[in-house]
């Protein structure tokens, strides 16, 4: 099999896009080919690590700050939650 074809198969293997039969066939071929095996294992590992990367936290503070930016730019918007605590009460200096 050509190197180019192997590379394509390894790409699909890494993204778990091969059928289980092809997956097993490729693994069997890799048992006798250390370079191919290393390529398959390391690429799949990299993809798995990336996919396991946690989402950035979408915090309540971020939600509120984005809302404030929208208000400040004149957007009319109905928030899902009551006003944040710091906007619910008048500060003494505001009378």
């Amino acid at each position: 099999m050509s190197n180019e074809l192997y590379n394509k198969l390894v790409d699909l293997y890494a993204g778990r896009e091969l059928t289980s039969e092809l997956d097993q066939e490729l693994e069997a071929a890799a048992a006798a080919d250390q370079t191919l095996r290393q390529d398959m294992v390391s690429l799949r590992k990299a993809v798995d690590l990336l996919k396991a990367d946690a989402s950035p936290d979408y915090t309540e503070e971020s939600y509120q700050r984005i809302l404030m930016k929208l208000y400040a730019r004149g957007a009319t918007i109905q928030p899902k939650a009551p006003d944040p605590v710091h906007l619910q009460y008048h500060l003494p200096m505001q009378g």
Partner: protein
Amino acid sequence: MPNDALQDSLAEKRWLNALAEGDPTALGGLYELYGERIFRYTFRMLGNRTDAEDATAETFLRVVRRSAELRADGAFRTWLFRIARNLCIDKLRQHKLMELPPDAQYSGAEERTTLRVTVHQALNDLPLEYREPLIYCDLEEMSAKEAADILKISVPALKSRLYRGRRALRDKLGSAMERTQ
């Protein structure tokens, strides 16, 4: 279509109709529906919370300003991500000029945190043409077709960039990956 996706699709249609009719609550509805996804996407593109919040707000403001271009034909999400993408690219150009450092805010056990920062850093170090397919397909779990539509390229071109990007990421991760084995 799974139940959640169907409900989101119906809600999207409702808010887009409301936006077309000039209903002032429409923006809030669309923000509730897509705010978190756009924030996550912009954070991954820009690498810091402040810029991600700015870009998210600006994305929704542009939705209102450009609502005349909208068609309720299922392509709204692609259009929304394109707006966010253009804003991110503008901000990345500014960063390049000003050399702003990304802030990676992570929590958890030290070793896991170190690995996450390494993955995050490796992703940020990739050229944009590789980074974007990885964000869309591997992190946001979009289909290749949807990612290709956002980038205005063909599906084979998207896949080619995705596979090259994964290999480039593996090369960047290098020794960090060996430590996890």
